[in-house]
């Protein structure tokens, strides 16, 4: 009988491992065999750990001895290649000469290790987490298409069952976009909720950490381990971490769900719009009150995030610019890094003023709604090598289209999750995005879980 343990979600694996019904070694072997079997097509891992089976054996011994560390004990987890790891090399997706990264664990990785997770390998990132394509990774639902990015390796690996969960990072949508494109759940926690110490910086005030998983419950279990104060991350806040599993047991009856009708519903692929409207109607059907709203300031967001992201990235890469390494970056990333010098100081600070205004606008909205729902992306996964797509009958660059609905939550730092909500006419996954108040990851998980449990999207697997 084939070992298909890789098909099981974390929420089912965890109690089975705890009770000795599933072996962490057998589970890790299943994932490694799956990597061997299909990653030649996907290219989602840049490095597979030589220590994974040893870690699984260690976990198995501990569980047998009665020391169960919690739901991640013995669970194979992929790590995006911009998180530092002490036993695996980090490249941040770059092969530019003269760059090296420390062999030490980032705080998120050390939390996973302490929880007993088996770190199975490093998943590919778009170079320095800058892009939305993640070459050479392929989308498991259609190998001719991109997995989106920049956590495209994590999205593809989780979607294809190469690991049970994976870490991602999100500066403008880089967890949620590949989650939507690959049909997984992706949670960008509140800015300050998960430490970014040991994650190669992209843009200090926009970078967020979080998990990609197969289910919402799995996302809650990962967040339970990742969340918490860390003094090494200057942005991290000492906020209490609730029991996220408890949030999942509550219905959405009586909750008020806002639908921001400007910006988030502009120029959508028809199938995306229909799937998201159906998801909203389904939540109304189980007792949520739906309220339409508008946030006019969103019209100015693209200039703001570009000003902050470009100038921050260029500042981070300043030494590489001076050392002549940047011409060795991938052409798209090279251009973006060189371009950052064009953003003026006043433009940068205007963008930071805008963020305050936008956060205040969201605060006002959250006085009358509990969460805000909308599409994660206006488009589904596009063809590799395609730089322009037709959206709403208009040509639009994939760079502009892909992150239109995700970056507002990087500017505001609010928690946001992408959950599968259907497939388009080409069989490609569609994601719905739910965002909440600062540090209310529980609220977004609650609504996401209420939607997920009434649908069978998570039961579908790509045919690879």
């Amino acid at each position, binding site marked *: 009988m084939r070992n298909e343990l890789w098909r099981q979600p974390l929420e089912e694996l965890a109690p089975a491992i705890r009770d000795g019904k599933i072996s962490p070694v057998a589970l890790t072997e299943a994932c490694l065999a799956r990597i061997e079997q299909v990653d030649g097509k996907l290219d989602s891992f840049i490095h597979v750990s030589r220590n994974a089976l040893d870690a699984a054996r260690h976990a198995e011994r501990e569980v047998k001895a009665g020391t169960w560390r919690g739901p991640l004990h013995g669970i194979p987890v992929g790590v995006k290649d911009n998180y530092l790891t002490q036993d695996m090399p980090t490249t941040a997706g770059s092969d530019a000469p003269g760059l090296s990264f420390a062999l030490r664990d980032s705080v998120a990785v050390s939390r996973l290790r302490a929880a007993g997770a088996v770190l199975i390998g490093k998943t590919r990132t778009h170079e320095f987490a800058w892009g939305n394509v993640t070459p050479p990774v392929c989308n498991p639902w259609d190998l001719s298409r991109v997995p989106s990015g920049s956590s495209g390796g994590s999205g593809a690996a989780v979607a294809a069952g190469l690991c049970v969960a994976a870490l991602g990072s999100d500066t403008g949508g880089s967890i949620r976009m590949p989650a939507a494109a690959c049909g997984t759940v992706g949670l960008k926690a509140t800015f300050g909720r998960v430490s970014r110490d040991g994650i190669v910086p992209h843009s200090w*005030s926009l970078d967020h950490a979080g998990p990609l998983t197969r289910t919402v419950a799995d996302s809650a279990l990962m967040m339970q381990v990742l969340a918490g104060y*860390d*003094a*090494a991350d*200057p942005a991290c806040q000492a906020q209490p971490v609730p029991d996220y599993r408890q949030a999942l047991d509550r219905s959405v009856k009586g909750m008020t769900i806002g639908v921001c009708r400007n910006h988030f519903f502009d120029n959508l692929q028809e199938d995306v719009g229909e799937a998201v409207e159906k998801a909203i109607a389904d939540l109304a059907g189980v007792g949520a009150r739906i309220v339409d709203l508008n946030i006019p300031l969103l*019209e*100015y967001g*693209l*200039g*703001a995030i*570009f*000003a902050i992201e*470009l100038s921050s990235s260029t500042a981070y890469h300043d030494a590489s*610019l001076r050392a002549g390494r940047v011409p060795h970056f991938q052409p798209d990333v090279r*251009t973006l890094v*060189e*371009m950052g*010098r*064009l*953003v003026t100081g006043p*433009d940068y*600070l*205007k*963008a*930071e*003023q*805008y*963020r*305050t*205004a936008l*956060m205040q606008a969201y605060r006002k909205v959250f006085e009358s709604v509990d969460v805000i729902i909308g599409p994660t992306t206006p488009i589904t996964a596009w063809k590799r090598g395609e730089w322009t797509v037709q959206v709403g009958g208009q040509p639009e660059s994939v760079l*502009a289209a892909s992150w239109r609905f995700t970056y507002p939550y990087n500017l505001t730092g609010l928690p946001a999750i992408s959950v599968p909500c259907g497939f388009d006419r080409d069989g490609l996954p569609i994601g719905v995005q739910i965002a909440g108040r600062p540090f209310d990851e529980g609220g977004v998980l609650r609504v996401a879980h209420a939607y997920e449990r009434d649908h069978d999207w998570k039961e579908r697997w790509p045919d690879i």
Partner: protein
Amino acid sequence: MKNPDPWNDILDLGLPPERLADVLAAYRDILVEIGKLRMLDLTDVHPAIVFEPTAPYRNKP
């Protein structure tokens, strides 16, 4: 002393003219968006980034 050259001295990228032209062309669409942002009157709004002089005294591991 000659006035600084905006591209070579202020940007200080050391790019050949053709490459500089490519970067400027790629920036054109972004500048349109930043131009919209410049039109907002945010005189009374404090930037989101706040200077925090106690940061070096936080307990680091």
